[in-house]
């Protein structure tokens, strides 16, 4: 008979804790999940002293996330499809035969640029500072805006800060797609700037 109030208190505590933890739970995913038939960004790519511009077309296909990088005059410079496990290259900068490490570096840049690891992670629990990390294979740190509706910063987890790729994303109004995306890879003087085309 005496244990009843304790049991009741414990039940309340469990319910309270469950509700508290559910209040902290926010579903976050990449903006590429909201891309329909195709989204076009004006793209500027800088590598050391070299500068190139073009159009980056992002599509969600049955196989994965497809990227087509076009010159402004229309030629397709690069085409690839990124799946959670691999990247399928269709075209790589016209006649250039790439080195494996260049392809790998570009793949890593595309994955963080489009927050593709988040496309796989369904739910995360951000802390009070709106910052959270993905662990395991999908390693990265992400910052959400105050309303928890958009990822505004992302960075790759790396043993040395110098080698980290960092991404900043800006949004306008209710548009779920970022208006501006900037990737920087400091030590290699490599950056990609994307501006959403109307």
């Amino acid at each position: 008979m005496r244990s009843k109030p304790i049991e009741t208190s414990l039940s309340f505590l469990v319910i309270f804790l469950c509700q508290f933890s559910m209040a902290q739970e926010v579903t976050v995913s990449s903006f590429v999940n909201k891309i329909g038939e195709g989204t076009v960004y004006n793209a500027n790519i800088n590598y050391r002293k070299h500068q190139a511009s073009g159009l980056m077309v992002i599509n969600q296909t049955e196989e994965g996330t497809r990227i087509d990088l076009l010159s402004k005059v229309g030629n397709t410079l690069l085409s690839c499809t990124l799946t959670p496990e691999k990247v399928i290259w269709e075209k790589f900068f016209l006649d250039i035969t790439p080195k494996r490490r260049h392809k790998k570096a570009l793949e890593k840049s595309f994955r963080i640029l489009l927050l593709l690891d988040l496309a796989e992670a369904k739910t995360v629990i951000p802390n009070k500072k709106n910052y959270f990390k993905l662990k395991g294979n999908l390693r990265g740190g992400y910052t959400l805006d105050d309303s928890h509706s958009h990822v505004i910063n992302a960075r790759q987890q790396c043993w040395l800060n110098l080698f980290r790729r960092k991404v900043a994303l800006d949004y306008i109004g209710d548009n779920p797609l970022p208006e501006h995306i900037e990737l920087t890879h400091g030590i290699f003087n490599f950056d990609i700037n994307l501006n959403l085309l109307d």
Partner: protein
Amino acid sequence: MIRISVLLIAFCISAGSSFGQMYSDLKPMEDIAVFKKGLTETTKSTKTIKSEFVQKKKLKVMKAPITSSGYILFQQPQNLKWAYSEPYVYAIILNSTEMIVDDAGKINRIPLNDNPLFSDLSQMIISSVEGTILEDSRFEKAYYQSEEYNAVMLEPNEADMKTYLNKMILYFDKTDFSVRKIIMEESEGNYTELTFSNVQPNIAIDPNAFKAY
């Protein structure tokens, strides 16, 4: 055996129909000599061209094309300005020695002597606008006509060029022989279509238009 034959026939019909849909209005040209003579005379007498254009880039993974527009300026012998004004500001200026890229004010100069690929592209763009690409021996040519246009289909002979161009179709006005449309097909379902309007031959063009500051 019958199944294989049926599959082959179905494949041929589908391949033929995709070609047919895109170029369904074209039939073999009746008098190629007359067309070539008219084009040669027009090319010789054309010193400058000013024209507006609409560019549609079609990717097989997208239903709607990516559309941009702008203007071109051409001046004999080798000056061409290809300027986009919508939805981005971007221009390529070509002359006999360099390609200048003006990306919303950021200027990038590419010497053509050091870049055979850019040199080839530059020459191809200029000769397409000028109409002299028909004299280029690196292409196989086929001549067609429709109600509105004379058309020449060019297929590159060189393997290097085939990596970025499967075929190109130039549409010429039947009366003044000016280039009115260019379709550059990269691969099945992926192509760029340029349609020219307000074509003004032999008007005065300020030489400073071909400079970048």
